[in-house]
């Protein structure tokens, strides 16, 4: 969206106002679906920071989503902490887990890193069923969670959960946007474009790549935590390989290396499978596949890239604003 900062700011506030009003105009199940959209948007943004901006292709973020979800579920059931207080703990655990996984991953490039993270995603559901930790994880059965109560009588608990997720989403996107627009963001992208030149410019590429891995895991973990609150249930089979792949699908459909793209990607993840199911009960995934291929061909820089292009045509403003990183394509 390359329009003047003022127009952008007004647009942003309009979208935010709509987002706040949304749960009061749609019915119960829709509120849940939009809660999941916010939740996936954080996860897609997390995957985009690592894969889109930093160029480390990650197929295993579902593992961090699971860690975030289980952290919240276990803490709520065993420690008596209120639901909101479990989020920072889930964030910290996922950051450390991501950072530590990022250290050995430093030696791996492109498809090799993709495979290592794929291995993580494949292993996660079964590791969660491990007997030794069944006391906390509930084994195959998983854990049931209580739905957080609304703090005001005027709204129901579904609406409150949506608004709570909206607050967390806004915080995470402000933090992520700040991280990407300045010194750190330029370094993260420089490493993607030319790692050797980046280190010659004084960037500690190993540290940056590990930290970026940690940040990505943290975003994904917070998304997992909110997802657990929204579904009120965690079990090993909620965190399949398909979930991990979905985040990358969200990144590509929304727009690689874009901030707003995360929301479009999240809408795709949440709404396209049931939509495909409506069109064909027999082959919903074939429909899903066709829609995915259509998106990739019709919008090579994602939905966000398309909007940016349209904005540029309408406002006739050629150069992107200086704090903006242009959308990119994945290059393994």
């Amino acid at each position, binding site marked *: 969206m390359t329009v003047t900062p003022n127009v952008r700011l007004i647009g942003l506030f309009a979208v935010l106002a709509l987002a706040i009003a949304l749960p009061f105009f749609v019915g119960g199940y829709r509120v849940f679906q939009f809660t999941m959209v916010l939740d996936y948007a954080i996860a897609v943004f997390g995957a985009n920071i690592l894969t889109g901006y930093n160029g480390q292709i990650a197929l295993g973020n579902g593992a961090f989503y699971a860690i975030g979800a289980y952290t919240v579920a276990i803490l709520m059931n065993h420690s008596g902490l209120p639901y909101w207080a479990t989020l920072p703990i889930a964030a910290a655990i996922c950051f450390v887990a991501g950072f530590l996984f990022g250290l050995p991953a430093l030696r791996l490039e492109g498809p090799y890193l993709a495979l290592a993270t794929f291995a993580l995603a494949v292993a996660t559901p079964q590791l969660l069923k491990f007997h030794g930790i069944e006391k906390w994880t509930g084994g195959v059965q998983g854990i049931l969670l209580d739905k957080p109560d609304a703090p005001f009588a005027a709204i129901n608990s579904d609406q409150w959960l949506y608004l709570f997720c909206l607050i967390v989403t806004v915080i995470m996107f402000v933090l992520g946007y700040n*991280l990407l627009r300045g*010194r750190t963001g330029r370094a993260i*992208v420089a490493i993607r474009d*030319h790692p050797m030149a980046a280190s*010659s410019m004084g960037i500690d590429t190993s540290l940056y790549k590990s930290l970026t891995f940690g940040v990505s895991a943290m975003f994904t973990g917070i998304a997992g935590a909110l997802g657990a609150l929204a579904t009120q249930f965690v079990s090993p089979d909620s965190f399949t390989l398909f979930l991990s792949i979905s985040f990358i699908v969200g990144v590509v459909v929304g727009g690689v290396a874009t901030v707003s793209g995360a929301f479009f990607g999240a809408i795709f993840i949440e709404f396209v499978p049931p939509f495909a199911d409506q069109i064909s009960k027999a082959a919903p995934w074939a429909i899903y596949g066709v829609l995915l291929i259509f998106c990739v061909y019709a919008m090579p820089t994602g939905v966000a890239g398309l909007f940016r292009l349209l904005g540029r045509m309408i406002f006739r403003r050629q150069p992107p604003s*200086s704090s903006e990183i242009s959308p990119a394509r994945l290059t393994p």
Partner: protein
Amino acid sequence: MPDGITNNTGPLLAIRGISVRFGGIVALNDVSFEIERGQICGLIGPNGAGKTTLFNCLSRLYEPQTGTITFDGHELLSQPRHRMAGLGIGRTFQNLALFRTMTVRHNIMVGGHSTTRGGFIANALRLPIVAREEARLVERTNALIETLDLGAVADTPIQGLPFGTQKRVELARALACEPKLLLLDEPAGGLNSEEVEKLRALILMVRERYGLTVLLVEHHMNLVMRVSDKVVALDFGRKIADGTPEEVRNAPDVIRAYLGADA
């Protein structure tokens, strides 16, 4: 000399007994020379003489088997690669190594990475120090854009810019770390004679303006001889001459290396 203390006397760069071997091939064999502060030093030699290898030792891309490199009181070989820019060594690359999806402005700002400090947390929270650093960096970047005549393309992504323009962006990016020593790897490569003339003026101008010492690897003999205060010649990984352009031009070993044994 302990780290962090600047030695203002003596040469800025002292290379002593550097040898680099790749398997059985000796790329550099016991090479030693010094560069004084403010000098422009040309490094010449036929293809495969070891010029770029020496350059890559200076930016810590290659690890020499023997020898020491002292820069401004620091033992370079005990420092990691990403510390070079912070110590004051800026460089350009023989085959452009720009960040291709980023704009000219952002490329130059990445060059200034080592002059700023804000880390992940400070940036995510956009602490006041980050905004201050950013404002200073933007100011210096604008000055470099003006100096190197990049104003018209400042907000254009690198991809698709003409080769000569990209070379100027690389120079601006190298200058953004506020270097004491500027390493230029074949800056005249691919330029026509008019552009080479402009390049010569540019090198002299930035040396003057930023108080730089310059080490220049170059095939373009005319440029090297007319811009350098001192020339070092390599052949098959050995130093064969070291002196003023006049002395090196007339050294028998140099004539032999360039024109063959019978010349």
